[in-house]
């Protein structure tokens, strides 16, 4: 900005006597080269309090006499108070850092510990379900063709096996104006909305449904906890992608008519929730993995005797297994874990 163009202007009248001949030592007149940074110069050049020089000068000229004892006492007390204050300040600054750090370390180590435990348990789960799957496929492999097909169809229906095929993708997203922290905000997609959509899709003949890659099985619950929608106890976040395998035109019709259509229309119009339905040539849904077997039964006494025991072995806990093998086995074997009396059966063995 202030860069001067070189040349004639320099020779032109610069204000002040410093312009000509010798570089004038007069500090008052003319701009110093570092005039724009006097503040920094001031700070850098004279860091010592000018008071020291002033007092020294006075003392040298004899203006200042000896100090009285009262004055000395005041100085002493002031200095002591300042010393205490600074020490207290320094110690206070040191302390909370230490205790906060300690608490942090404890939390950190417990987080790592729990994470390790979760990872170990997860691995256990994977190993066990692989074992279960292997045992089951061995069992089914022994059986004849129709039974195997039936089991596989059952597994697809129960949401255990991955599925792909033509279908729909329904995308529900919170309104832009939604308050993120408020779980009750109607502008956010609620568990009820997803329940209605999913139930409507089932009613319209959907073969398999997944929300955000969480497969919906017969016993899957869609609930909300705080601000998250839980599907099978897994918290999902906005936007919600409901993927469906089935007859796309029929499903689409179901989404525009009846209760579901009304609800979606209301969501869109009243609350500004994004609803986007698109037909897809191919939708791939993941499997939900192994379900807990709570009830099993040999169909019509058709199985040969040796197969009864392995069924129980593969699918029940050891306690029940022992009781099972001791009791004289009738043609139909029922095995149920005690924690689920009357719970919905994850039926993969109960073909009829």
């Amino acid at each position, binding site marked *: 900005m202030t860069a001067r163009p070189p040349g004639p202007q320099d020779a032109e009248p610069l204000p002040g006597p410093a312009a000509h001949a010798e570089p004038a030592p007069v500090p008052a007149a003319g701009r110093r080269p570092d005039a724009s940074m006097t503040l920094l110069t001031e700070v850098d050049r004279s860091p*010592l309090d000018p008071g020291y020089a*002033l*007092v020294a000068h006075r003392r040298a000229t004899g203006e200042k006499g000896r100090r009285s004892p009262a004055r000395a006492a005041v*100085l*002493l007390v*002031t*200095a002591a108070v300042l010393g205490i*204050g600074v020490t*207290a300040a320094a110690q206070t600054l040191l302390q909370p850092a230490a205790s906060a750090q300690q608490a942090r370390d404890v939390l950190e180590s417990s987080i790592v510990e729990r994470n390790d435990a979760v990872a170990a348990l997860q691995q256990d789960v994977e190993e066990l379900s692989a074992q279960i799957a292997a045992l089951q496929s061995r069992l089914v492999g022994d059986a004849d063709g129709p039974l195997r097909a039936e089991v596989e169809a059952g597994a697809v229906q129960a949401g255990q096996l991955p599925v792909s095929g033509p279908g729909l993708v329904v995308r529900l997203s919170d309104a832009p104006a939604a308050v993120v922290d408020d779980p009750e905000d109607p502008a956010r997609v609620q568990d009820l909305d997803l329940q209605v959509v999913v139930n409507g899709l089932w009613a319209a003949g959907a073969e398999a449904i997944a929300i955000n890659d969480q497969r919906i099985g017969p016993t899957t619950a869609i609930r909300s906890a705080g601000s998250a929608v839980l599907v099978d106890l897994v918290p999902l976040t906005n936007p919600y992608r409901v993927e469906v395998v089935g007859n796309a035109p029929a499903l689409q019709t179901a989404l525009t008519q009846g209760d579901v259509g009304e609800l979606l229309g209301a969501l869109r119009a009243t609350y500004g929730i994004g609803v986007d339905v698109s037909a897809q040539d191919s939708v791939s849904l993941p499997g939900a993995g192994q379900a807990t077997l709570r009830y099993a039964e040999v169909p019509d006494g058709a199985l040969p005797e040796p197969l009864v025991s392995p069924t129980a072995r593969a699918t029940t806990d050891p306690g029940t297994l022992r009781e099972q093998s001791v009791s004289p086995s009738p043609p139909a074997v029922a095995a149920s874990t005690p924690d689920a009396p009357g719970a919905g059966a994850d039926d993969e063995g109960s073909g009829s």
Partner: protein
Amino acid sequence: MIAVFGLVVGVVAGLVLQPTVPAELQPYLPIAVVAALDAIFGGVRAMLDGIFDDRVFLTSFLSNVIVAGLIVFLGDQLGVGSQLSTAVVVVLGIRIFSNAAAIRRHLFKA
């Protein structure tokens, strides 16, 4: 010298008594400590220059701490507390550095 003696007595007393600082003053402690450091470095330099004076030392100490705290307080009220703290730390930091350099020249002649 009486100021230095008093300061040492105060520091020892502080270490022994472990006084607690009221919670309202806690935000100003870091700046206050930096200001105190500045005053101490200035005092040492003045001592080496041979112009040390108890009264000037204590006055500059006290006013440094109070003004620094006041600036931070004002900054907090105006919503620019952290920026003003930075400004205070920069200015005092430069002063501490140049005083330390002067002390070094005195002690090591280099």
